[in-house]
Structures are given as C-alpha cells and as structure tokens.
C-alpha cells in the first residue's frame, strides 16, 4: 500500500521523531494510533510526548470498522501510553480524570489502568466514586453487553496499584470480593492484598488457581504476580495453565514481593518451568 507521506511504510520500524510526527497527524487516526502506541512502548522521554498525548486524549471518534480501529482509538491509546510515561505523565492526571467520566466504557477502562500505572494518588477519590454502590450498582451487568456498568477490574486494580490504604479505599473495594464473577473477585482480592498485605486475600487468590475455568486461573496467576505474594510459589507451579503465564507470575513474586520464600527457591521454581 502506498503511503501519503514520505515516512516509512506500514510495518517498517520507526523512530521517536517519526512517532511524534504521526501523533500530530490529526487527519489520519490510524497513524496517530500507532504513534501513541510507539511512544508508550518505547518509554519516550521526549518533552513533546506527554503534551501531544494529552491532546490526543481529547480526540473522540466513533469506531471505524473499515480501518479496523476501535471507538476513540486514539484517545484510548494515548491513555495507555501516558500510563507508561511516569513521572512526566503525572502532568496529565487532570486530563485522565476528565476522561474517567467519559461515556465510553473502553476509554474509562484504559484511563483507570493508566492512573494505576502512574500511581496517581490524586485519582483515588474519583476511582472510588466509580465503584460506588458495589456489586449491585457499579458491578451490575450492563444490559445487552458482557460488560459490567463500570470497568470494575481496571478500577479495582488501579486502587491496588496506587496503594493508598485508607478506609474509604478499603470500603470501596471490599464488597467486590463477593461479586458473582470470579474475575472481579480476583481483582478485588489482589487490590486488598496489595493494600493490606493480609494473608486472607492471598489465600483467596490461591484458591482461585484451582477454579474450573482456565480464564479464572490465568487471572489469579497474574493477580498473585502483581501483588508479589511469595507464599504462592508452590500453588502457582502446580496450576493447570501455560508455563509462560506461570513464569510471569513467578517473576512478579521475585520483583514485587519480599520475605519467604527467598530469591533462590523462587528462581529455582522458574527454572523448572522453562
């Protein structure tokens, strides 16, 4: 396919200058989409990266099926990229908080994850507000959709990642450990484990490693890794799931956890899964 610009063709490797140029192409969302992705993927420190991504976060556009692009694709990718650009992207927290009230569920989800990635303490009240009413309100099924009214998994995970263990946060998160969907229970237990360090939540996640659905076992693996819950070494090694995911989980125990078991048995456990 011929490209309208003189830049590299689709699929060619590009550099930071080219990524920034693509993000400026307001006439071509697919170029902007790729430019935003590139800047996040490569952890750009360029002074123009965050300002351009903040502009891109305001772009709204319906889904264009012919271009294979999702609704508000540029804004969503801008949010994801901002999440990877701490500390510079902390300047974008007010823009992200605006977008957290957007009507687009997928954009709210991407924004919640970005706020968690940035550990944006200023976002905690807004994240808690989105979870208001617990499983019966924020966590109620959305009519005609497999989704819940709010992107609860992303909101819960963000509160856990930010790590501010106030009563308001704990009260917002805790009702979701009784949600009917096991993936939401897993996300809530992960957040509570990160916030409190209480073994009770670690044990809840470990019990989900034996859930009959593979999708739930995979989520519990990722959640134990994110929380760095080292007592899960043996149960993770035994879980019926891909070794690739178990290795990611054990990497999380190494890098995010502390205490027993110590480093060497954790690395031996990883070696056994190679």
């Amino acid at each position: 396919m011929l490209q309208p610009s003189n830049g590299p063709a689709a699929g060619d490797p590009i550099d930071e200058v080219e990524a920034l140029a693509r993000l400026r192409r307001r006439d071509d969302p697919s170029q902007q989409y790729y430019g935003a992705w590139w800047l996040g993927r490569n952890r750009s420190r360029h002074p123009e990266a965050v300002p351009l991504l903040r502009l891109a976060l305001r772009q709204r556009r319906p889904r264009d099926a012919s271009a294979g692009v999702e609704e508000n694709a540029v804004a969503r990718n801008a949010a994801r990229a901002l999440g990877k650009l701490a500390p510079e992207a902390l300047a974008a927290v007010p823009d992200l908080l605006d977008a957290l009230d957007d009507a687009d569920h997928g954009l709210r989800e991407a924004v919640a994850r970005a706020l968690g990635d940035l550990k944006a303490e200023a976002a905690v009240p807004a994240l808690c507000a989105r979870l208001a009413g617990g499983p019966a309100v924020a966590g109620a099924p959305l009519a005609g959709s497999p989704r819940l009214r709010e992107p609860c998994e992303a909101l819960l995970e963000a509160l856990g990642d930010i790590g501010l263990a106030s009563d308001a946060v704990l009260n917002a998160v805790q009702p979701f450990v009784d949600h009917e969907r096991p993936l939401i229970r897993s996300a809530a237990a992960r957040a509570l484990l990160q916030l409190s360090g209480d073994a009770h939540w670690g044990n809840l996640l470990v019990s989900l490693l034996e859930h009959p659905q593979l999708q739930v076992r995979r989520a519990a693996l990722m959640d134990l890794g994110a929380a760095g819950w080292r007592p899960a070494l043996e149960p993770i090694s035994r879980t019926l799931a891909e070794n690739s995911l178990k290795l990611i989980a054990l990497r999380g125990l190494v890098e995010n956890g502390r205490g027993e078991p110590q480093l060497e048995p954790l690395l031996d456990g990883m070696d056994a899964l190679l």
Partner: protein
Amino acid sequence: MTPSTAVDSLIRAVTEADSAEALVVATRRLAASGEVAAASTLVRVLGYNNPGAAVAAVDGLIALGVQAVPALLEQLDPRNYGARAWAVRALAGIGDVRGLALLEDALATDVGPSVRRAAARGLGQLHLADLSADQRASLRDRCLQALEAAIADGEWVVRYAVAAGLEALALSSGNENPEACSRARTALQRLAAADGTSNPDAAPVVQLRARLALARLSPP
C-alpha cells in the same frame, strides 16, 4: 495380552480418538506405557493442534529419552509450526546431541518466545558425557555461540532461559573446558550488569538470575 498388543491397542486409541478430550486421555495412556513403539505415534500427536495432548506427548517422548530422538527428527514436518515448537521442547528435555541443530535454529529464528525459551534451556543441558573430549569441546562451542547470540533477545523470558542455560553449560564444562566457562561467565556478567539498559523491557529478574548463576559458578 502381550506387551506389544497392549501398546498396539493404546496406539489405536490415539489414532481413533473422536474428540479432543478423548485424544488427551489416549495420549496420556500411550505416553505412560514407556514403550519405544509409542514414539512414532506420540510425535504424530505433536502435529494435531491439541495442546493438552501435545503436553502429554512431550512428557512421554522425554521419558523415552534418546530412543525417541530418531522419530522426532525423521518425522518432523518443517511446515507444521506447532509440531516443530513441541518437538523443540521434547528435544530440549531429552538433551540428545542429535537435536543440536534444531535447537540452534529455534533459538535464533523461532517467532515463539516459549519455543526460544525451551531451546535456550536445552542448549545448556545436552548430554555430552559419552563423547570424546574433542567432540565435547566443539559441541560446547556451538551451544555457547547460540546462547551468546541470544543475550539480546527482545523477550525477558528468553534472556532468563539463556542465563539458566549458560549456568548449566558452565557447570557441566567445569574443569575440562575453562575457556568455555569463562565465556559463559562473560555473557552472564553482561546480563547481570544491564540486561540491556537500552531495552524498554529490561527485567530485574533476568539480572537476578544471572547474578545467581555467577555466584554458583564462583563459590566464595
């Protein structure tokens, strides 16, 4: 039933399985037989695009060890990507030197990180004890070259497996091949120092694994 008719009926259960679940169960039974005659059928299962059955077949082939290698190398369809990936895992687990070329190629070129990961591990644990000292040195050199070339792999899990492979290779060359040992140590030091600082995917766990390997190679 004599042992051979027993294995024949286990093979028939695999070839006649009429559902994905039945194939997994039949493959597990055949893999557990420990019969060399099972190898050819187990290799065929690797190409059936059934992960549960393939895992069981790989386990069975590794248990058969060197006896399974001819079937793995001769029957492998190079156009069947999935089958090749599983075969790399089986050969890595068996450690037979006849698999070396496939492991080298897989680590250098395979698109699947889990395949490159298995190949790196396999290159660290080939069984060389029955060979002459010259052959051992030359094969170790090939393994080292392949592992050294992979320390800049874009996936952390492959670099992790390279660290583990380098450790195993250095430990097994021991006093016999100090040069190989020192090359492995140099590569491990590079992984331990930086794990490629220019890499946005730099992984602390890779550095920690490389440091553990270095500590095990030079006990205090």
